[in-house]
């Protein structure tokens, strides 16, 4: 039944899901290219898991379409969809052994014999010799691989992954990230991966969509989203950003001029999401450099000077907080490469950046500076 459907993109069209008065998914539109590794990234409760469950058929949308290769599958029963899921808790059948768990989908579709395919799927997951074990006798990582084998053996058009790595410890998670990426390359199936871990989304996916309150805030390649976020939410959900509240005061051809904290800054218009009114001038902490005085700042850079208020040493880098004039506090990551001077609280310093690394975002007039200092390495916390 699943085989005759023409392969193609997965498209979500005007998808909405309400639970009573609560709108979990709000008029969502998304196209996921065939064979791509797509990550749906968002904090818990943003509607990403609901979206996944709608694609799987475990939740019926209030309105909208789920098109797979041009066919609307939004109202098909889950067992009629050429889509398989790896659940967050794995949901392995506790009364069946590994072999029967993996063979489950084949048997339900009446495919016979299953032996060869099951053994092949198990060896792809490096689970040879585990056939007769029961889920309760496996470690978390092994259960995860069985869940993956159980879904992949059916060669679905889309594989849905619901936070599949969240139950694993950090080391195993890193290994499985690489492993998943390798498997996706090998089988060429579209992966739709739901996660709240920004690092996981960026390292694994070709395309990332950042979701917030039932809507997509931005989607694109990880570098694109990180280097040029579309909204303040994205700028701070994916890594950190220094967002300085300012007002557009004009433009001089290629640049947009912004006034903030009594100083004027220029941002290339190609790096601007807004070109008038209240804006945020955004700079990533690692794009901020520190110097002792203004005359050390390269001529093509812009700067704010102030006093170091905090220095957190974190091995590879040190995070500094610098209080600039006007009370704004900037966060800067400086790599501990040995070439840079170390600052301590109370030292005067100048924070400078290249305008090509800055970006402009729209801002509501009543919003202030948004700096979210996190006093640790910028890794894997969501």
């Amino acid at each position: 039944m699943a085989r005759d459907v023409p392969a193609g993109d997965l498209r979500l069209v005007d998808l909405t899901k309400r639970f009573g008065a609560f709108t979990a998914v709000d008029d969502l539109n998304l196209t996921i290219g065939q064979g791509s590794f797509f990550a749906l990234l968002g904090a818990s409760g943003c509607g990403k898991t609901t979206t996944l469950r709608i694609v799987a058929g475990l939740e019926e949308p209030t309105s909208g379409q789920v098109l797979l290769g041009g066919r609307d599958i939004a109202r098909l029963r889950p067992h009629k969809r050429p889509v398989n899921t790896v659940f967050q808790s794995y949901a392995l059948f506790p009364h069946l052994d590994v072999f029967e768990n993996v063979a489950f989908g084949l048997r339900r579709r009446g495919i016979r014999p299953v032996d060869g395919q099951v053994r092949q799927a198990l060896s792809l997951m490096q689970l040879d010799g585990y056939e007769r074990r029961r889920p309760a006798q496996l470690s978390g990582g092994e259960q995860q691989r069985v869940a993956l084998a159980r879904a992949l053996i059916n060669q679905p058009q889309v594989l849905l992954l619901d936070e599949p790595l969240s139950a694993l410890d950090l080391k195993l998670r890193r290994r499985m990230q690489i492993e998943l990426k390798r498997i996706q390359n090998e089988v060429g199936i579209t992966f739709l991966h739901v996660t709240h871990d920004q690092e996981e989304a960026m390292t694994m996916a070709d395309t990332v969509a950042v979701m917030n309150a039932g809507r997509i805030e931005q989607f694109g390649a990880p570098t694109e989203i990180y280097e040029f976020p579309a909204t303040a939410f994205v700028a701070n959900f994916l890594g950190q950003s220094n967002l300085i509240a300012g007002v557009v005061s004009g433009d001089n051809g290629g640049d947009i001029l912004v006034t903030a904290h009594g100083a004027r800054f220029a941002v290339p218009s190609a790096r601007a999401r807004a070109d008038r009114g209240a804006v945020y001038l955004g700079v990533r902490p690692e794009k901020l450099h520190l110097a002792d005085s203004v005359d050390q700042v390269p001529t093509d850079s812009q700067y704010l000077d102030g006093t170091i208020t905090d220095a957190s040493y974190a091995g590879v880098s040190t995070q500094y907080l610098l209080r600039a004039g006007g009370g704004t506090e900037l966060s800067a990551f400086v790599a501990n490469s040995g070439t840079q001077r170390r600052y301590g609280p109370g030292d005067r310093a100048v924070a400078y950046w290249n305008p090509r690394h800055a970006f402009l975002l729209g801002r509501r007039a009543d919003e202030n500076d948004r700096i979210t200092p996190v006093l640790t390495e910028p890794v894997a916390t969501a």
Partner: protein
Amino acid sequence: MSIWRWLARHWVMGLALLVLGYLFLPIAVVAALSVNRPAHRLSYDFHEFTFDNWRNPCATSEMCEAVLRSVQIGFVATVVATTLGTLMAFALARHRFRGRSGLNVLIFLPMAAPELVMGTSLLALFVAGGVPLGFWAIVVAHVMFCLSFVVVTVKARLAGMDRRLEEAAMDLYASEWQTFRRITLPLVLPGIVAAALLAFSLSFDDFIITNFNSGTTVTFPMYVWGAAQRGIPPQVNVIGTAMFLIALLLVLTSTLRGRRLRNP
């Protein structure tokens, strides 16, 4: 080592053994009396060891008829109560409907109500409704009080079951029926079997409610009650011991099976 230190170290174990002894002493007496040849009819003292009672359990034919009747009633009542109770447990655990919370409370009432009250009121009901007392009246009464226990037991099992397993099955191309047959039923089955065993043992040894509604039908507990007036035949102890051994065997096999599933 002083006696006090020894006591301090072992008193919990000693206490546990005493409690176990308290629990099993009556069963030990029954087992002992099953291999006893009583001195005379009304004597319950251990007189002489013999296997005669075991070789000849049906020496008193009325007793064996009563046992057979109790088994028949227990079987029918168990099948009906387990089927209805399992369906009710599924409805209560899986569906939201009007009166669900009320039903959850009502289901406990038959367990809490005194058996004497239930027995008399059922008798009044049967007489008023023109239902003849006897085998089928007893079955109806037993189904009534077994039902609650089945619902509670199966519901507990269902509550502990992860709904995502069923979702995973449907995601893996199983239709609703296949999901039930391959995933839900096998996972709930231990609960259903436990409920059935409980229902059977409740039915088998019920005396009070049965006594009110039996008419001229005699079940095993009623036979024992009647026989107590003129001397209980030692074969009663054979039946009692046999029931105990069968129950023990069932528990042991299920434990061993469970252990084998976990470490094959």
